[in-house]
């Protein structure tokens, strides 16, 4: 009987994992996408799925764009860093922008990518943040960058 319960719980957990595979769950940055860090009223969220993405060899695209304080961006960077741990990360930093791109662990046959960008001016108190989560058949970050050009 105990075996049945353990097996049932395992399968139940597995079913939740499969449900999670539908989006960016399993990532720290998911808290942001769920509106737990920045309220939805402060951001522009875009979700696209379908033929439009075929030219980029993507199947799902989700982005968030908003203005954030320095403290908020620090928290966001920590989350992105957490998701980038032990992964190959591409970082570009200039005087007025910071961009971090990472291929996060795949789920099933779908490769997943996370891009984070901050832009600011010296006079600005707030920074403009853009976060993009993508899923698709693109093999690597380099290939994705080429397709986006």
């Amino acid at each position, binding site marked *: 009987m105990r075996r049945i319960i353990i097996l049932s719980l395992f399968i139940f957990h597995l079913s939740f994992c499969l449900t999670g595979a539908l989006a960016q769950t399993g990532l720290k940055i998911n808290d942001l996408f769920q509106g737990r860090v920045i309220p939805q009223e402060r951001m522009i969220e875009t*979700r696209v799925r379908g033929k439009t993405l075929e030219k980029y060899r993507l199947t799902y695209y989700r982005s968030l764009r908003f203005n954030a304080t320095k403290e908020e961006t620090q928290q966001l960077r920590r989350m992105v860093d957490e998701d980038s741990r032990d992964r190959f990360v591409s970082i570009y930093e200039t005087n007025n922008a910071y961009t971090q791109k990472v291929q996060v662990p795949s789920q099933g046959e779908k490769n997943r990518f996370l891009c984070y960008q901050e832009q600011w001016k010296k006079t600005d108190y707030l920074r403009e943040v853009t976060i993009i989560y993508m899923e698709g058949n693109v093999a690597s970050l380099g290939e994705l960058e080429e397709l986006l*050009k």
Partner: protein
Amino acid sequence: MNDNILKIRTLVDRFFDGKTTLSEEQQLYEFFREARELPEDLMPLSEMFLDLAAVQQVEKPLPQAVQPVRRGWFRWAAAAAVALLIVGAAVTVFSLRAQPEEEYVAYIYGERTTDQAVVLDEMQKTMTALASTDGSDIVEEQLKSMFCN
């Protein structure tokens, strides 16, 4: 007392004839166990009845020291686990089926829009911002910041 002895003698006769009931046998055992003085004719039988009484005591089922643990809750837990499993599986299947092939949704500062043109325009903006941060742009940016200030 004499009546009692008489009764015992009758019972002894019935015992040897194999006609005593269990209750009558109990009376005999009890009598021989408790008797301090016995009539002479009954004395040789004392040892035998005491032995039979002892054997009968051993054969009696001992009171169960440990009651079997009631396992009703275990069955309920198993049933609950199976129910959860079914619900989990149903949710998974429903979610997988409910996933649209085409999705164009944007939340602009909390307001939902499914206008494809608006959604794609927003997607294009974020993608352009992302694509414009490749290495060549950084070099250009750095050169500008070094020489054009």
